[in-house]
C-alpha cells in the first residue's frame, strides 16, 4: 500500500504537507484533500478524524477489508474511527491511515426497519421540553414522527446512535453523568437519540423507556440495531 520511498521519508520525519507538491503523489493528494487527521491515542491506538458519517462508514469498510498489521478492533463513531492495535503504533501506520482510500460499504442487504414501542415518561422529559421551549406533548409528537437511522454503535452492547433528529431536539448532555441509567431508557444527546440496552452509567437526557430487547449475546445477530437500520418510536404510554 505504501511505497518504500514514502516510508523512508515518513520515518525520517518528513511531514505530509511537505510532500503534497510531489508529482509522484498525485493519486495520494486526493486522500489528503478528504482531510484525514490522525491522532496518536496512547501506545495501542490511533484515531482517524473524518468529515461526516458517510466518511466514517467508508474508513471503517476500508480498514475491515485491509486491516493494519496487528489490528485488534475498530470503533466507528460520529466523526472518528478508532483503530485499536495489539502493539505500539508506528509512523508508518499514521502515514497509511492518512492516505487511506475510503471504500463504500457493501450495499444490497435491505436495511431493516425497527419500530420501538416507547412509554414517554423519562425523568428529563419536562426539562427537555423546557430546553426546547415546547410542550411535552409536542416533543413526544416530534419523536414519534421522525425516522431515525443507526449511524454507528458504541457505548454499550446493542446501543445504536440514532441520527435524523430535528435540530430543535439537539440537546447538551447532563453536566454530571448519572452512575446508573435503567435498561430500556430512551434518551437524547447532541444530534442523536439512543436506547440504553442495559442499566449503565450515562449522561444523556432521559425521555422514555422501551421493553424491546436491544441485545442478546445468544441471538444471531446479537444486536437489534446495527449501522444502517431505520428506527421509529411508537408512543405506547
Amino acid at each position: 500500500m505504501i511505497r518504500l520511498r514514502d516510508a523512508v521519508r515518513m520515518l525520517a520525519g518528513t511531514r505530509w504537507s511537505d510532500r503534497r507538491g510531489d508529482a509522484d503523489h498525485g493519486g495520494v493528494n486526493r486522500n489528503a484533500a478528504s482531510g484525514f487527521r490522525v491522532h496518536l491515542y496512547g501506545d495501542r491506538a490511533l484515531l482517524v478524524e473524518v468529515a461526516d458519517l458517510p466518511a466514517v462508514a467508508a474508513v471503517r469498510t476500508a480498514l475491515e477489508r485491509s486491516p493494519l498489521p496487528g489490528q485488534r478492533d475498530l470503533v466507528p463513531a460520529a466523526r472518528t474511527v478508532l483503530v485499536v492495535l495489539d502493539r505500539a503504533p508506528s509512523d508508518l501506520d499514521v502515514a497509511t491511515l492518512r492516505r487511506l482510500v475510503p471504500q463504500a460499504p457493501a450495499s444490497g442487504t435491505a436495511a431493516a426497519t425497527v419500530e420501538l414501542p416507547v412509554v414517554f415518561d423519562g425523568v428529563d422529559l419536562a426539562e427537555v421540553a423546557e430546553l426546547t421551549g415546547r410542550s411535552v406533548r409536542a416533543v413526544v409528537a416530534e419523536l414519534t414522527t421522525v425516522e431515525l437511522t443507526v449511524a454507528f454503535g458504541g457505548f454499550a452492547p446493542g446501543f445504536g446512535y440514532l441520527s435524523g433528529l430535528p435540530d430543535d431536539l439537539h440537546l447538551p448532555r447532563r453536566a454530571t453523568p448519572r452512575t446508573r441509567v435503567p435498561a430500556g431508557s430512551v434518551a437524547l444527546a447532541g444530534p442523536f437519540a439512543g436506547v440504553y440496552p442495559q442499566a449503565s452509567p450515562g449522561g444523556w437526557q432521559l425521555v422514555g423507556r422501551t421493553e424491546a430487547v436491544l441485545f442478546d449475546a445468544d441471538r444471531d445477530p446479537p444486536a437489534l440495531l446495527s449501522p444502517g437500520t431505520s428506527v421509529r418510536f411508537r408512543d405506547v404510554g
Partner: protein
Amino acid sequence: MLTVLAAGPLTTVQDLGRSGFAAIGVPRSGAADAASAGLANRLVGNDPAAAVLEGTAGGLRVRAERTVLVAVTGAPAPVTVDGRAAPFDAPLTLAPGAVLALGVPPVGLRTYLAVRGGIDVPPVLGSRSTDTLSGLGPAPLAPGDRLPVGVLHGEEPFVDVAPVRPLSSGPVLRVLPGPRREWLDPEAWTALTTQEWTVTADSNRVGLRLAGPQLTRARQDELPSEGLVPGALQVPPDGAPVLFLADHPVTGGYPVLAVVTTADLPAAAQLRPGDSLSFRSLP
C-alpha cells in the same frame, strides 16, 4: 472443578477480553491487571488466553475437587491452604478437598488465582470475562458456584517463585497526550502531571474517578462521541477526571486529555479508594 465457598466483595472470571465487536458496542473487558493475570497463567503453564479468577480486596475461598496446580498473584493477599500459610507468586498444588483462602491484601486491590487448565466456563462472544459494565460473561462468583477447570497435558512448569516488584499505594503513572488535549486549558496538562490525585470511592472496574485540582476546559462545545481505550483519562464538564480501566465503555463523549501507558495500567488497576497517584509526562 473448584467449588466457591466465599467470593469476598467481588470475584469475577477474567481472560484477555473480547475483540472485534466494538462496532455493535461490545467492550473489551478482561483482567484489570493484565500483567498479574498473565503471570498467574505462566506460573501454572497455561496459555495466556486462559481464564483466571480476579478477586477484589480478598475474601475468596475455594475448594479443589481434584488435584489442581494453582498460582496466586497481584495484590498480595495472605494465602492459606487448609489454614496454613502458602506461597504467593508461586505454583502451588492443591489436593482434592483442600481449601485455598485469600486474606485482605495490605496494599493493592485485585488478586488473581490461576488454575492449570484454565477456568472453563462457556465463552460469550469469544471470551469468558465478566464485563461489569455490559453484563456480558459469567455472573460474579457466589458461594456454591462450581467452576469447571480445563485439562492441560504435558510437563508442569518448574518454578519456585516469580520475582515481582512490590505494589505502591502512591504510584507514578506515565501518560501520553490524549487526542483531545487542546479541548482543555493549557494549564490542565500541567495540573495533571504535577499535582497529586486521589482515587475516590466511586471507582470500580470501569474506571477510577479522581479528586484533585479542577481541570478546566478550553472549549465548551459538545465533543462528538468517540472510541475509548483502557488508560484514557476523560474530563467531564464537572472537571473531575475519570481514568478508564478494563470495563470502560466503547465510546465516550467527553474529551480525553491523556492516556496512561499500557505498561502502567496494572498499577492503576491496583489502586483502591483513598490511594494517591500522580502522573508523569512521557517525553
